[in-house]
């Protein structure tokens, strides 16, 4: 699966991320310092890179306040954050994905595109593995309808 990530440009407040940070604090996890949230769109292999860039630029991104990256390019490595991706499980109605599909068709792209939508969270702070898991289960994902994956950026000093 290839991923288009849409996030706010530098300097544009990430209200959603701040809200998530507040909620994590409320859970009693005080080690959390910063949360950055972005939207992710996962594409199965049918579409080419050029098509994906076209889709990102013309359908998914509000170019005034947002930017995108494809497959993790432009990623500033080594910030040592926890990265959590949350996607809907297969079979669960994904309305945003359906709408993107319609928009892709309306934009004249003929390739049959298979897509799922989700959210990505970058967590910075001193968090134990248990903290991270608890945040996923109790806040970011509903295991009934969503899957989540956890990965650590390089330079992560977990188990603080």
């Amino acid at each position, binding site marked *: 699966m290839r991923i288009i990530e849409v996030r706010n440009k530098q300097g544009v407040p990430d209200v959603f991320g701040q809200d998530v940070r507040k*909620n994590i604090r409320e*859970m009693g996890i005080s080690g959390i310092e910063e949360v950055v949230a972005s939207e992710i769109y996962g594409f199965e292999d049918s579409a080419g890179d050029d098509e994906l860039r076209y889709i990102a630029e013309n359908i998914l991104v509000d170019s005034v306040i947002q930017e995108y990256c494809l497959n993790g390019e432009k990623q500033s490595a080594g910030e040592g954050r926890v990265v959590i991706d949350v996607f809907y499980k297969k079979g669960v*109605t994904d*309305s945003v994905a359906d709408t993107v599909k319609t928009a892709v068709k309306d934009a004249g792209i003929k390739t049959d595109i298979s897509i799922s939508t989700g959210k990505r969270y970058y967590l910075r702070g001193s968090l134990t593995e248990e903290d991270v898991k608890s945040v996923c289960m*109790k806040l970011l994902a509903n295991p009934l*309808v969503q899957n989540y994956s956890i990965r650590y950026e390089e330079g992560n000093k977990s188990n603080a």
Partner: protein
Amino acid sequence: MPEYALEMNIIGAGDKELLEISGKNLLALNLEEMKAVKKYFTGIGRNPTDCELETIAQTWSEHCCHKIFRSDINYTEKANGKIREEKINLLGEIRKVTEKLDSDFCVSVFKDNAGIVKFNDEYGIAFKVETHNHPSALEPYGGAGTGIGGVIRDILGAGRGAKPIMNTDVFCFGLPDADYKRLPEGVLHPRRIFRGVVSGVRDYGNRMGIPTANGAIVFDEGYQKNCLVFCGTVGIIPLKNVEKKVMEDDYIVVIGGKTGRDGIHGATFSSIQMDANVSTNVVQIGNPIVEKKMMDVLLTAADEGLYNFVTDCGAGGLSSAVGEMGSETGAEVMLEKVPLKYSELLPWEIWISESQERMVLSVPGKNLKKLLELFASEDVEAAIIGQFKKTGKLEIYYKNEAVCSLDMNFLHGGVPLRNLKAQFAFPGKAEYRKDADAKTTDWPARIMKLLTDINITSREAVITQYDHEVQAHTVLKPLAGMEHSGPSDAAVLKPLYGDYRGIAVGCGINPFYGRHDPYMMAGCCIEEALRNIVSAGADPGAAAILDNFCWGDVNDEENLGALARCVKGCRDFALKYKLPFISGKDSLNNFFVEEKTGVETSIPGTLLISAVGIVGDIRKTVSSSFKRGGNLLYICGKTRKEMGGSRYYAVFGIEGGEVSEPVPSKTLPMMRKLHCCIEVGMVKSCHDCSDGGFIIALSEMAAGGGRGAEVFLDRMISDDVSPEALLFSESQGRFIVEIDRTLQGDFEKAMGKNVSMIGSVAEDGEIKVFYGGEKLFSLSAEEAEKAWRSGLQW
């Protein structure tokens, strides 16, 4: 050998096997019902298919056919050592009210997807309130969104299609400071449910272009494991479109969304208690864009009269919708014609799926082409899936194989109703504890604490997320005053261009009273709903109400007894207030069983009463905020020491006390007089006293108006009660009214003994309270406002 349907061995099954079949397939049918099914199939000499069994389970589910409300109940009431027995039928009692009142105001009651009352000679108002509790507990965002989506479709499916003009939302959540670590497995934290539910209603309602303009939120420990989400929609419909009838040979057309595996078993699931092991299939996720497109094209088709009947595809999916539509004729369905989200669905899954945004039409052959063209032109799915046939049978095929053939009579009349037992015992007369009366003189501190109480504090943080202006007809909005800083009692809409007639919508809910006495709770909820709309300017003589009961485990005789007592309260008080019930819904079995311990918790018995009334001229609508310094303040109605279940007792941890008893014989005539005063434009502001009592109502009026007041407590009408009770008692039947000084004589003459002048509005921003010739305390209105607006800002 059938290819698409599975034979279920019922005929040869003993009691144990019957229950196993019901349990394994999530049918939620009890032994008696399974036996009735067995008897029917033994009679026709064959076993049922999986599709037939599922159809029966959906149609007979508590959710769809309200077995408890339709059953006869042997009800025993114990009070003061005496035992009274009576036989009651819950639905019968509710309907009796409407029958006895026999009001011209009612147009269509208890038979359609929504109740319909008269707006003017040309239009009716359709109103329906639904619950979506279980789905919202599991997936708050999706559950609440599809709840509002569903009730919107109820309005679209009322008569031959009403146009939705407003949504209401009422929620009950657990306490927001619950410990994350102590929540049982499978229960989401109340804050998470709160945020999810609010954003679900917001996103669905706003995207549909329908204002969300009235509601309430209750927080209580008892809702931690089962939250309640009530969603309501008001619509407007030409009176000529109210009646509908399925005609023989009409085509069955399903419109809107495609069918997937989502929401399978929602109808039966709602009768099964919650625990940690629920399957993902029951979760529904909505798509408001699909529904919005469907709504627009459906209303065009309604205007052109292209179909004979429309209904919503809700709980039970196509099985319920088509089953009900064809109950008087018969229906033939080709399941392979249903548009699917993906191909691997089994026939029975297609038949009972609760995928959202779907409705079913009954279309005469002559209009079929035009209708399909219309839907195609707007890019909305419309598929012919069968035909209504005069066979008296429900016949379903999948690729030419019969997968279901049931008699409509058996399907709709075959459910065995149980004889239930219920009992209610009064906990004994509620004494006031002698040490309960406050020794304090520090009233301002108590008031400030009460203002920040989670059940009193401003709902601004939620309200401002909703679009309450779209469609540009919301006259009285949820927040009152120049700065939108005070609460409104009701929403007032002006639905028609060039006509100043309006609709007022309000609600009453108070589970805290129910803990003392469900009967009085019913009376208080009915009165509160009525008070709310009357405050805003509605005519108490042109109003109607809806009931929504949410109860715990009703297999428990005491829980069922409390429900029966609540229904009796509804019957008696609705009759006395002359308010017909026009629609209602019950959601029973809201209880949770903890997996590890087996401990069962039921929600507090909860009744929501929603009221709709007519405002003759919206230019006379009154808001709750103070308008001008120097204006006189009146209290209408008498204050008694009624502190049981009050917010004041709850916040300060005082137990006992009597719960407020409504006095319709006094209150209703007073409301009529007050209405006359509002109608002639005499009243500048009006607010009813409810949660928190007189002083909270006064502070709210001050918050909205940005002004203070000077009031003399001894001038309140009462039987000599203490300042504590005058400030905080929650006696029913009270309003605070602001009048221009020059109209003092007129107002007092019009209202007679029902009112007493208690003081005036003060421009200086202080709330000064006097008692016994002395100043009891004063409070900065600005600080009170700040406190009141702070409680939900997390």
